[in-house]
Each structure stands twice: as structure tokens, then as C-alpha cells.
């Protein structure tokens, strides 16, 4: 599980081009959207594509995404449970 969390942090930094953020700076329970890391709705859509491409999880409603992307911890739990890749 901690491997997955590490992997997610790397992917987020790369996918969303967060050049000046290092993996250590993202805590497992840190809020990703809004105040925390400051991600927005476009980032949410990017992460939805990542879920599909890398983990085989398809979301049809963007609003579902916001709940799943609460934090790295929440994301990892969801992916572990639903991944098909």
C-alpha cells in the first residue's frame, strides 16, 4: 500500500506538472484540492484519465472524482479496491 501511495505521488507530480513540489512534501492525508495542494477541476479530470489508463478504473461522473481524490490515502484505498490493472 505504501508503494502505491508513493507511486501516486510521483504520478500526480508528473501528470499535473507540479515542478516545484517534491514527493516528501505531499503527506498521505493532506487535502489535495482547494486549500491543500491547490488542485482544481481541470486537475480532477486529468486524474480521472490517469485512473482509467493506469488502473483500469472508469468514472463516468466527474463529481465522483472529487470524493476519491480527497487525499493520497483515500485515493490509494479506492484504487486498491477497484483496480483492474
Amino acid at each position: 500500500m505504501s508503494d502505491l501511495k508513493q507511486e501516486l505521488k510521483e504520478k500526480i507530480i508528473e501528470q499535473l506538472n507540479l515542478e516545484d513540489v517534491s514527493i516528501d512534501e505531499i503527506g498521505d492525508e493532506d487535502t489535495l484540492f482547494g486549500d491543500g495542494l491547490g488542485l482544481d477541476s481541470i486537475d480532477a479530470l486529468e486524474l480521472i484519465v490517469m485512473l482509467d489508463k493506469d488502473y483500469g478504473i472508469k468514472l463516468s461522473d466527474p463529481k465522483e472524482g472529487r470524493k476519491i481524490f480527497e487525499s493520497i490515502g483515500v485515493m490509494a484505498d479506492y484504487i486498491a479496491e477497484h483496480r483492474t490493472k
Partner: protein
Amino acid sequence: MKKVYIQSVGSVSAQKTFDNSEFLDEITEYYDTIIFAVNPVYKDYIPPAAARRMAKGIKMSAVASKIALTEAEVENVDAIITGTGMGCVRDSEKFVSAIIDNDEAYLTPTSFIQSTHNTVGGQIALGLGCKGYNFTYVHSSISFESALLDAKMQLELDEASTILVGGVDELGDHTVAIHRAINHIKLKAVSLGGLLSSRTEGAVFGEGANFFVLSNEKSDTSYGELVAVDTFNTLQKGKLIEAAITFLTQNDLKVTDVDLLVLGNNGDIEFDDYYRVLQDGLFSETQQLYYKHLSGEFNTASSFGLWLASKILKTQTVPGIVNLNDLSASKLDVILLYNQYRGLNHSFTLVRKC
């Protein structure tokens, strides 16, 4: 009708122009067929959270507009009007190639969103929190002049008092490749000084962003007055002289009133003939300048021309590197600019010391 003044400039180009205290003090030489912008330290101007999505054109515009706004000492403007010939090329290329390469699978929104032509105008508005008028003109070599004209009309009628106007275009790998394939870009490399004597087809492509704060209130630090702008979708070589005279007459000027003629010669043997009509004919007694050897050719390169004219009016000096003929003007008050691209979309712009 109120008069229109250029209050400030901001430029990111293939020369080091992002420092307003300098005026082509160091020239970036090249021996190439495409030239890229000299980058400022983008981090100094753009917060990383915003910069992460921005392709070059948007970054260059963010810097150029910030420099112009800072120099004009304004925190917000009444309107933002931009011109771009090809829009956000890099993001467009990214999205199209992703569609084709991945068979429409796993596409992400960022490059699509960033590819819309008015992204630059939208981003600047977002950054400033500017809810005012916001237009983007996309029409080849008169994209920038359309933006200028729009701004001028609003300021003259006092519908706005300060407007940010800019021209921007960026180079994209694939777009360069296809334009090479149709000989719009020179086949063989040329040097900066050898551009006009190359006598070959095509131009040296460049990129850049040039922004200006225009206002209808003069200040001690104004660069000059924007007197007139006119654009023509087509203009036969045989009608060029008549059009130039008409343009000047409409502004109560004669040919001899023009101190400097700034032309858009880009070294393309097929199309520089247009400039020759004015150089050898009507304006043979006038000091002539050119600039595309410094900026490269791109649809909004004429905004670099206006940058040059503005700097000349303010500093009352002409850098030797831009001279096209050996004449020397007795004063630097009235500057006429003329540009076209591949025989279409011609423009005349007139600026004056104020």
C-alpha cells in the same frame, strides 16, 4: 475624439528585450532558419501553480504584459485585447497528436483547454481579476493591428481609459516542420545580418510576445501617440503607393513629414518586393528601418515593429542594427510602419512623438 497614447511596453523576443532599461544593447546572433525567444526567468513573473499549465506563448505573454503593466504603474485595465496568428500552437499539436497516436483514448483536457485562441487573453484576465472587455483577433499578419484598432476606437470614444494590447505567437515543432515542407521557411540557414541578402524563398521563423498599455491620458512617461492604424486584406503592388499616400493624407501628413519608415522585410525573395515599392519609390529620401532579422517572422511580428518604433520615440535614438538604408533623419517624430505577409493582410500604422 480623444488621443491615444502608448504608456508602456513589454517584450519577450528572440533578442533580449524583456528589460525595458535596455534597447538592443546586446544582439543575439544566429545562423539558422528558426529562432526562439530569449527567455526571461519565468519564475520571477509567474506563480508556479499557474505556470505549470502554460505553454511558451502564454508564458511569454504573461511576462510581457506584466512588464508593460508595471511600467505603466497600473494594477488593472479596462480591457484586454490580444492578437495571435496561429494561437497556442504547442498545445494544439499536443492534443492532435495525442488523438491520432492513441486512437482517441486516454486524452486529457489540459492541452485542449490551453489550445483555444483566447487562452492568453483569458489567463491575463484571470491573473488581474479583470472583468472588462476581452477580445482575441486571429487573422494572420493583421491579428495585432486588429487588436490595436479595436483598442484605439474604444479609447478615442472614451469607452475605456486604459487598455492592454498585445501580439503573440509561438513556434511549435510540427507546425515548423509542415511549413518547411511548403517552403515558407528558408531551406538554408542564414545569419542575422545576412537575412535580406539571402535572396531565397521563405523566411526565418521566430516567436515572441509584445504588449502595450494604451491610454487616452498623456503622461510624462508616455512613449508616443498612436495616430492611426489601417488594414487591408489584399493590396496590389500597383496600388500600394496610392494607399500609402491616402493613409498619410487622411492624417494630414505628406510623405516628407515621415521621419522614419519601419518595414516588415523578412528576406523572402518572393514577397519583399512589396517593401521595395515603398523603399525605392515614395520613400527613397526617408530613413528606412527593418526588424524581422531581430525578431524572426511570425504573424504578430509587427508588434515587435511597434515595440521598436515606441522605443525610438522614447529614447530618440535608432540602434544601428535596424538601419535599412544609409539616410539619417533630421528628427525622430513621425514613424510610419508597413507590414504584410506573403502578399496578404497588409497594414499601415502611424505613431508620433507626444
